[in-house]
Structure formats: C-alpha cells, structure tokens
C-alpha cells in the first residue's frame, strides 16, 4: 500500500493536480511517525511512510492547509479520517476545492502502548509479518499477534467505508455492527452509580490537563476554546480540584456531542491512558437510543441531533426512569 500511495502522490504532484501531500514522516524507531506535508518527490521517496503505526488522523490539519492559497493538497484518508473530514466539511471548516482526497483502506492500527503493555520494551524497529508483528528490541526479537496489539478504537471499528473521497486505493469496505463499539459503555451502564463514580474518579484523577485530547480532536475547532477564557473561572491548565477534572471532561465531550465521529484520537493521545472514548461514545449511544441513529460525518441528510428536535422527544426524566441502580 505504501508504494502505491507514494507512486500516486508523485504522479499527482508531477501533473500539477496537487501542490502538496499530507501524510506521515518516518521516525526513529518505526512507531514514532509524525504527520507531515511533503512538497517534492524526493521528500516522498526519502521520508513518506505508511504502515500500521500511521494512526494519526490528518483531517484536522486540512483546516489549516486548505485555507492556504497554494493549490490543492493531497490527503490520504482512512475511513475514520474521512468521517472526520466530512464532518468538518459540513461545518464549513475546510475548503473542499483545495483538497484532493484519496481513500485508503485500513485494517486497524497498532498501538505502541499495547505492545509495551505486552511486556516488550527497548523497541528499535517493528516489521509486519503476516498476521504478526516482529518487534526488534535491544533485548532481542519478539513476535506478537497484530490483532492483540491493535488500538482499542480499531477493535471497535465502526466502518471500513469512506463517506467522502476523490478516488480510492484498494477495495471499499463496509459498515461494521455497533455492538462491539458500545460494549464498554454498556458495561459501565450496568454498574451501580457508586461503581461508576469510583471508576471515573480513578480514571479522571490521572488527568494532567495537558489538553492533548482537545487539541488533537478534529471536532474541536473553535478559534477560542471556552477553557482558554480566563474570565470563565476555569483554570485551563491545572487539575486544581477533582471538580475541574469532571467539568473539563464532561464539557469537552459535550461540546463535541453530535459532531464526534468516534475517531478515537482523544484516547490515543492521552499520556495517562484515560479511556476518553467511553465519554464520547456514551453521548453517541444516548443520541442513537433517544433520537434515532445518527452518525456524524455521514452525508445522509440526517440532522445534527443537538441542533434539531422533535416535539415528541423524551423528557429529561427519562434518565431517572431508565430503571438502573
């Protein structure tokens, strides 16, 4: 796939269809790839990489890149990224005419933290070998099943289909059932309030308020974030009190409710490994159950659930009446 992508990128650069390419630049130990803009075929030959570690969602960068008066930019989008892009498009945050989209298939991305969790450290390189990864380390080679170290978001993948693209490389995939995706939320819902409270307290108390989850989120695109407003009385960079941890995470998730495409970037970037997707997915699940299935980033004419209503909507008391402990 990487070679196909490089070839196509160079062709589109050469024929002037695009002036730049956004992709991933190789790093020091194979897993530390960085999103990057390439302008020449030489750069692409030297540094362009696409492998199981290219998980970063590049759609948010397209806000900045598509605003430039510098021709079109080629972006390779995984299905996740395409949903995010489409949502940004619906919100008029990207200029479609300045972007050339190639949809690329995705079999799931590896999570280096899970590889390390499996007890593998001192990683110097990772190669794909059939169903496995062969991880070379300073302490010798290790072999691990790819499926065992996929990112959580990939194990709970919602769709292998691209809702938007100019061309596709490889086969188009299909939507996947939602039950896996909502299993984590359902498990929490089945707990008692005390258990849920303890669970979230232990998770959210790890938060260091680095704001990575907010800054990486392709739905968080406000020019000025409410948490950066000194007059709001919220310290945007200090978890000064447990209340602020709750407040930050509730409001962060709420502000993207109905717009979150569940790309999972928030959980991927969290240095403390807080399962932030469980907050976003709770909103998605509630919206689906209360207001009908809605998929942000889909072009199916459904209205954003938080900017629409029906007269027969459930009353807020539905939360009490749902009959859980």
């Amino acid at each position, binding site marked *: 796939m990487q070679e196909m992508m490089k070839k196509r990128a160079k062709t589109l650069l050469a024929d002037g269809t695009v002036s730049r390419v956004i992709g991933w630049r190789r790093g020091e130990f194979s897993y530390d790839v960085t999103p990057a803009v390439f302008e020449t075929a030489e750069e692409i030959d030297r540094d362009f990489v696409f492998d199981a570690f290219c998980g970063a969602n590049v759609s948010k960068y397209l806000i900045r890149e598509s605003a430039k008066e510098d021709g079109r930019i080629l972006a390779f989008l995984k299905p996740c990224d395409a949903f995010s892009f489409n949502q940004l498009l619906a919100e008029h945050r990207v200029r479609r005419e300045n972007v050339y989209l190639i949809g690329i298939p995705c079999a799931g991305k590896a999570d280096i933290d899970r590889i390390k969790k499996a007890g593998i450290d001192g990683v110097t390189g990772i190669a794909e070998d059939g169903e496995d990864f062969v991880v070379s380390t300073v302490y010798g080679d290790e072999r691990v099943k790819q499926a065992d170290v996929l990112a959580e978001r990939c194990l709970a993948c919602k769709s292998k289909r691209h809702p938007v693209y100019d061309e596709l490389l490889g086969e188009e995939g299909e939507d996947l059932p939602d039950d896996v995706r909502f299993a984590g*939320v359902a498990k*929490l*819902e089945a707990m008692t*309030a*005390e*258990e*849920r*409270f*303890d*669970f*979230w*307290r232990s998770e959210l108390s790890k938060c260091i308020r680095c704001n990575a989850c907010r800054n990486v989120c392709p739905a968080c695109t406000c020019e000025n974030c*409410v948490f950066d407003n000194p007059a*709001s*009385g919220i310290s945007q960079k200090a978890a*000064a*009190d*447990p*209340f*602020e941890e*709750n*407040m930050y995470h*509730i*409001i962060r*998730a*709420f502000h993207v*409710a109905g717009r979150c495409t569940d790309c999972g970037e928030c959980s991927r970037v969290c240095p403390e490994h807080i399962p932030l997707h469980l*907050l976003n997915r*709770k*909103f998605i699940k*509630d*919206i689906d159950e*209360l*207001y009908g299935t809605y998929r942000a980033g889909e072009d199916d004419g459904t209205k954003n*659930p*938080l*900017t629409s*209503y*029906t*007269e027969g*909507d*459930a*009353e*807020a*008391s*539905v*939360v*009490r009446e749902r009959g859980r402990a």
Partner: protein
Amino acid sequence: MQVNENETFVPTIVAFCCNWCSYAGADLSGTNRLQYPSNIKIIRVPCSCRVNPMFILRAFQRGADGVILCGCHPGDCHYTTGNYYARRRMTLLFSMLDYLGIERGRTRVEWVSAAEGQKFAETMKSFAAEIAALGPNRRLEDLRCRK
C-alpha cells in the same frame, strides 16, 4: 449546603427559571402566598435554552446540592423552540452525569407556565425534599469551595 442549628441538612438548590413562564410562575406562587422552601435560589434566564451545561456544573461547583431547570411547556416557548433544544441538551447532560456516578436525583427539568404558581411551589417542595434525602453533594463539589 448549610447545616442549621439542629444540625439537620438544609440543601442549597439552584433553580434556573425562564423569564417568560417559570419565573412568572414563581412570581405568581409568591403573590398567592404559596410556600416553597427558602433554600431555593432562583436564577432568571431569558429562556431555558440559555442554560448551557456549564451553568449546571458551575452551580454544583459553587455549593448547590441540586439544580433544577424550569421553562415554558413544550410548544409554548416565548422563542418558539428554545425549550425543545434545552430538553435535548439537559437529557444528554443528565445522562452523562448519571454515567459518571452522580446521583440522578440531583438534577431535574420541569415545565412551569406563568399560570402555574401552584405547580411551581409543589415542584420546588418535592425537589427540595428529594435533595434533602440525598444529602450533601459530594460527588460533584469543588473542595476549595466547601464551607
């Protein structure tokens, strides 16, 4: 939260009331000399949909033990549709608070028209009793503000 002389718990309750219906309803219950608990702090807002989720959280931060949002009955909004949006927002927010393990009874939405002074007083009485039974807000409080 307050504790009175007998050390019984007197909750602090914040009621966001829309200007056109519920605030007038509260007024009416006052002019009709209907009793409702004095520990309810009413905050007048132009419309129930003015209340953003942060208002609810900030009320808890600042010492509320329960927060209730009152607005016009669905279909009667002064701005036609504001309360429909508010209903969705609050439903999702309350569900999230529940999901985080915060007691469900601490939040409520009630529709109170300008003519429903009686309903206002009764709603407040029942909400205050429910919060009193729940005890002080400990799961969504800001320790720095604890009295």
